[in-house]
C-alpha cells in the first residue's frame, strides 16, 4: 500500500457531506443494534407469555399472542416441582462460591507476591485444569466418591465444583493482586510481618472487588451447572437445573410449566446480573485469560 494509492482513494470531502455521512452511519448502526436487541429479547417474551398461559391454551395460531386468560397454574406446578431443587442449589452454590474464593485468594496471593521455585509450572498446570472437559474425569470421579462413601451427596457436588473451580479463581485473584504494588508487600515484610500477617493486613483489605468477582462467577457457574449435578447427585439432592430438565422432558405440547420453571430457575443469577453486572463482566473477561 503506497501513500499515493491511499491518497487517491480518499478524495477531499466537503465538511457537511462528511457530517451527513457520519450521521447516516450512526443511525444505521443504531437500527442494526436495535434489531439484534430483538433477537436477544425475543426468548424472554416467549418465556413470560407462555408461562402465564392456561394448560388448555394450545392453539398454535396463538403461539405468539398474549394469554387469553392469564393463569398461574404453570407457575404453581413449576414451583412445586423445582423448589426442592432451588434449596439444593443454594446449599451447594453459596458455600461452594465462598470456599472457592478463599482458596483462589490464597493461591493468587502466593502466585503474585510470594513466588516459589516452579510457580510458573504450577500456574500452567492449574490453567489447563480450567479447560478440561469434565467428561474426561467423570467416570473415575463418580467411582472415587463412591469409594469415599460420598456418592450422591450434595457435599460431593460442592467439592467437585470447588476443586474444578480452583484454576479460574486462582487466575482471577492472581491477576488482581498483580496490580497491588510490590512495594506495599515489601514494606510490610521490612516491618517484620510474615506472609500471613501481610496477607491479612495488606492484601485482604484490598481484595473486596476481586472477592465479589470470584464469588459471583463461581455462584453463577455452580448454579447453572447441569452435568456435575446429574452425574453426582441422587434423586433427593437434584439441583434446580436437573428438576427443570425433568420438567421439560415430561412436556410435549404444553410449555407453560417448563417456561415458568426456566424463569424461576434463572431468577437468582439474573438478579445478580442486574444488580452486580459490573463484577459479572469482570469475571467473564478474566475467564478469557486476559486480566
Amino acid at each position, binding site marked *: 500500500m503506497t501513500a499515493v494509492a491511499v491518497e487517491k482513494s480518499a478524495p477531499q470531502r466537503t465538511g457537511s457531506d462528511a457530517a451527513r455521512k457520519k450521521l447516516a452511519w450512526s443511525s444505521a448502526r443504531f437500527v442494526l443494534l436495535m434489531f439484534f436487541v430483538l433477537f436477544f429479547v425475543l*426468548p424472554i417474551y*416467549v418465556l413470560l407469555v407462555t408461562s402465564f398461559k392456561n394448560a388448555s391454551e394450545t392453539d398454535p395460531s396463538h403461539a*405468539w399472542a398474549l394469554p387469553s386468560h392469564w393463569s398461574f397454574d404453570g407457575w404453581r406446578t413449576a414451583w412445586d416441582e423445582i423448589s426442592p431443587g432451588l434449596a439444593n442449589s443454594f446449599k451447594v452454590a453459596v458455600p461452594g462460591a465462598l470456599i472457592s474464593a478463599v482458596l483462589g485468594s490464597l*493461591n493468587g496471593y502466593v502466585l503474585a507476591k510470594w513466588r516459589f521455585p516452579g510457580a510458573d509450572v504450577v500456574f500452567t498446570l492449574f490453567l489447563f485444569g480450567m479447560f478440561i*472437559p469434565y467428561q474426561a474425569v467423570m467416570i473415575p470421579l463418580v467411582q472415587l466418591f463412591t469409594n469415599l462413601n460420598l456418592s450422591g451427596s450434595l457435599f460431593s457436588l460442592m467439592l467437585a465444583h470447588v476443586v474444578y473451580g480452583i484454576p479460574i479463581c486462582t487466575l482471577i485473584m492472581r491477576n488482581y493482586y498483580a496490580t497491588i504494588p510490590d512495594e506495599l508487600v515489601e514494606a510490610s515484610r521490612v516491618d517484620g510481618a510474615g506472609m500471613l500477617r501481610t496477607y491479612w493486613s495488606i492484601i485482604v483489605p484490598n481484595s473486596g472487588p476481586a472477592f465479589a468477582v470470584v464469588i459471583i462467577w463461581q455462584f453463577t457457574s455452580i448454579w447453572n451447572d*447441569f452435568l456435575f449435578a446429574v452425574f453426582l447427585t441422587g434423586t433427593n439432592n437434584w439441583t434446580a437445573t436437573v428438576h427443570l430438565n425433568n420438567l421439560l422432558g415430561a412436556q410435549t405440547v404444553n410449555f407453560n410449566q417448563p417456561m415458568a420453571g426456566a424463569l424461576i430457575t434463572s431468577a437468582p443469577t439474573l438478579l445478580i446480573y442486574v444488580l452486580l453486572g459490573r463484577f459479572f463482566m469482570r469475571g467473564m473477561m478474566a475467564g478469557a*485469560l486476559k486480566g
Partner: protein
Amino acid sequence: MRHARARNWLPGLLLVAPSIILVAIFVYGLIGWNFKVALSDQHHDYDVGKFVGTENFSNIWDIRVWSSSVKNGLIFTLVFVGGALLLGFFLAFLMDKAIKGEGSFRAVYLFPMAISFVATGVVWKWLMASPHGKDASGLNRLFADLGLGSLQNDWYNSTTWTNMASLALPAVWQMSGYIMALFLAGFRGVPEELREAARVDGANEWKVYRYVVLPQLRPVLLTSVIILGHISLKIFDLVYSINGKSVNTEVPAIFMWQRVYDRGDAAIGATAGAYILLAVAVFVVPYLVWFVRSEKKR
C-alpha cells in the same frame, strides 16, 4: 544462604499446597485413572478391567453412533464457533465508535450468559418446534405470520446437517454477547494514535479498520476461538435438554453418558471421554504455552 532463601518461599508453597494436591488428584490423577479404564476391558460392572492396550480407541470407531456423534459434534462446532464469532465481532464493530445507549446494548447482549444452558434449552425447544403449516408454532409460526413461510424448517428434527446447525443457534444466542465484549475490549485497546496516524496518512475509515485495527485483534480472535471451541467440543446440557438422547442429534458427550449409564460400559465411556479431552488439549495446550510465555514477557 540457601536456607534463608528457602525460608522465603517455603511458606508460600505450603499455602498453595492444598490446592496443588487437590488439582493433582482431581484433575491429573483422575485423567490418568480415566485412561486406565479406557485401556481396559471393563465393558460391564462385573468385568475386572484387565489391560487391553489401545483396542477401545480403535474399536470405538466401529460403533456407528460414535462416528455419527463425532460428525454431529463437528457440525455443531463449526456453526456455533463461526456464528458466535461473526455475530460477536459484528456487534462489537457496530458499538466501537461511541453510540447512544451503549451500556444498555451491552447489558442486553450479555444477559444470556447469566442463565443456564438448560433454561436456554427450554425456550429454544419451543422456538424450534418442527411442525409446519397450520400446526406451526414457535419460529415457524412467526415466519408464516411475517410472510417468510419459505424459512420454515424442521430445525433439530431435520435429517440433514441442519439439525446440528439448529442446535447451534441457541448456543450462538447465549455466547455471542461474550464474544462481543471481548472484541469490543480489543477494539478499544487499539491506541487512538495508531488510527489517527493512519488517517493523517490519508487512509479512509474502512482502511483504518482493515490495515490498522484488525491485525491488532488477532489475540482476541485466538482467545475467542479457544473459549468457544472448548465449550463446543464438550457440549451436553443444551443438546440434552432440547432433544434428549435422540440418536439424530447425539454428540460425543451424550454418547459417553449413554454408554456409561444405559449400558454400563465404562471402558467405552472412558474412551469417549479421553477422545473429548484429546480434542480439547490439541488446541488448548499450545494456546496455554503461548499465553504463559507472553505473560512472562510483559
